[in-house]
């Protein structure tokens, strides 16, 4: 099943995908454009992975890490499908990152790789924008690059774990203004989903609605105000986002 959280008629609803449309729990049916999309989970602790695809690490001139490069994100950064992400006027290097999001379903501590999927509730798509102008070498990637307001669109759907036979074999792509700019497959992750759940749960407790953003493959391109950016993962969904200048954002 594909689930979502949407706002309609002044209230927040749980919704489901129904023949390409959005069905609320009370049965009402809407088109994708008629609802306001919210992040499909209210994220608890959110982990993100840096350099988790070998080709991407190479693209940024890094050797592949020996241990997962994990950082955390706060609730301020998330927005839903079809929303706008603000881009500072002065930024020269803002890029998208198409990522598979793994949603934890139950409390996980000291989980072994072979049991990891029992702790996964489902999957979603995230676009983990980075503004590299603000990179500094302290706790890098620092929050000013990776935890900015509106800079992590997520959704549209929360796809049940049981619906995805092999999450480690899904194609990913990013389409900017109709042109495919990034293509990859989750096969190329350095640390797989079970690796990451084992790694994290070995030193801390994971809780329901924690989310792991598993990193992005190569193919990063800069984005500019006015761009339409779609990050898409096979079987999970296509997450659409618009880049807007911070000035315009402030007045909109």
């Amino acid at each position: 099943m594909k689930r979502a959280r949407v706002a309609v008629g002044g209230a927040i609803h749980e919704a489901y995908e129904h023949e390409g449309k959005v069905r609320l729990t009370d049965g009402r049916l809407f088109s994708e454009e008629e609802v306001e999309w919210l992040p499909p989970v209210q994220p608890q602790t959110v982990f993100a992975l840096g350099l988790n695809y070998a080709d991407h690490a190479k693209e940024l001139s890094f050797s592949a890490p020996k241990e997962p490069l994990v950082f955390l994100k706060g609730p301020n950064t998330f927005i839903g499908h079809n929303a706008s992400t603000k881009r500072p006027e002065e930024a020269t290097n803002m890029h998208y990152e198409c990522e598979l999001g793994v949603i934890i379903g139950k409390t996980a501590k000291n989980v072994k790789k072979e049991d990891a999927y029992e702790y996964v509730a489902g999957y979603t798509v995230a676009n983990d924008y980075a503004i590299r102008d603000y990179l500094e070498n302290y706790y890098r990637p620092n929050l000013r690059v990776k935890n900015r307001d509106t800079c992590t669109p997520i959704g549209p759907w929360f796809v049940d774990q049981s619906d995805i036979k092999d999450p480690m074999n899904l194609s990913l792509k990013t389409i900017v203004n109709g042109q495919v700019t990034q293509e990859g497959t989750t096969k190329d992750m350095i640390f797989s989903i079970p690796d990451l759940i084992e790694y994290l749960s070995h030193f801390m407790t994971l809780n329901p609605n924690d989310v792991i953003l598993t990193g992005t493959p190569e193919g990063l391109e800069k984005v500019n105000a006015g761009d339409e950016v779609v990050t898409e993962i096979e079987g999970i969904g296509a997450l659409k986002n618009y880049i807007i200048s911070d000035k315009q954002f402030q007045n909109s």
Partner: protein
Amino acid sequence: MIKARGLFNNLYQPVEIEVDPQTNNVAYHAKSYSANDLHWGVPTNATVYGTALNYKGELEKMGDLLHNDPYKAPPKAPILYIKPLNTFTPHQSNIPLPSDVKELQTGAALGIVLKKTAAHVNASSAFEYIQGFTIVNDISIPHESVHRPAVKQKARDGFCPIGPWVVEADQLPNADNLEVKVYVNNELKQTNSTENLIRNIGTLIEDVTEFMTLFKGDVLLVGTPENPPLLKEGDQVQVEIEGIGKLENSVVAE
């Protein structure tokens, strides 16, 4: 006695209390208690953001390293990190010592508790956004490098004692000049003051909310002083902040 908010015993949300920061005594409904007679909860459940290298002494200790690899240049913006939900733990709880680690590092931090949504705040009006102040012991596994996010060193279960309570902002007019002390097994091990911050409270809130919205209940730590005391199994640690009180926890093998 000064006004504070606390969560204890069977309460399901924080209530107004009066506290004596020097004795850690509490008054509630005309009865008085010692803090350790009550069973405390964590007084917030929102996001806790830490700030690294915000004490002048801490940055000075880095010295030339700041200009060398991998840092290359001194920091410009506040260096932030997140203490996630699994780390939160109340006054008097046990801090788990992981089996593969011998010592933990104390992180005596003044915690700014947000009163309302704060975005693009000016330093001059920052105090309008503050509900109050609490004590946080930002526990870490000792690590030298601040190059990569220290999730494995800082985000272990029970690594963020918070409390015992939140003192109302108007009760602490001198928050930019508070003495911070750490006692280990009742022995004074560290003394510093929030007057030694690189970014004081107002400036820190301005520079953080420039790119990141803080929400009601979020806690922003002002930083942890240089030369943090180390803790081993069985140690009792007390972080005392002038005008707030004492936060006490014990280190217990995981």
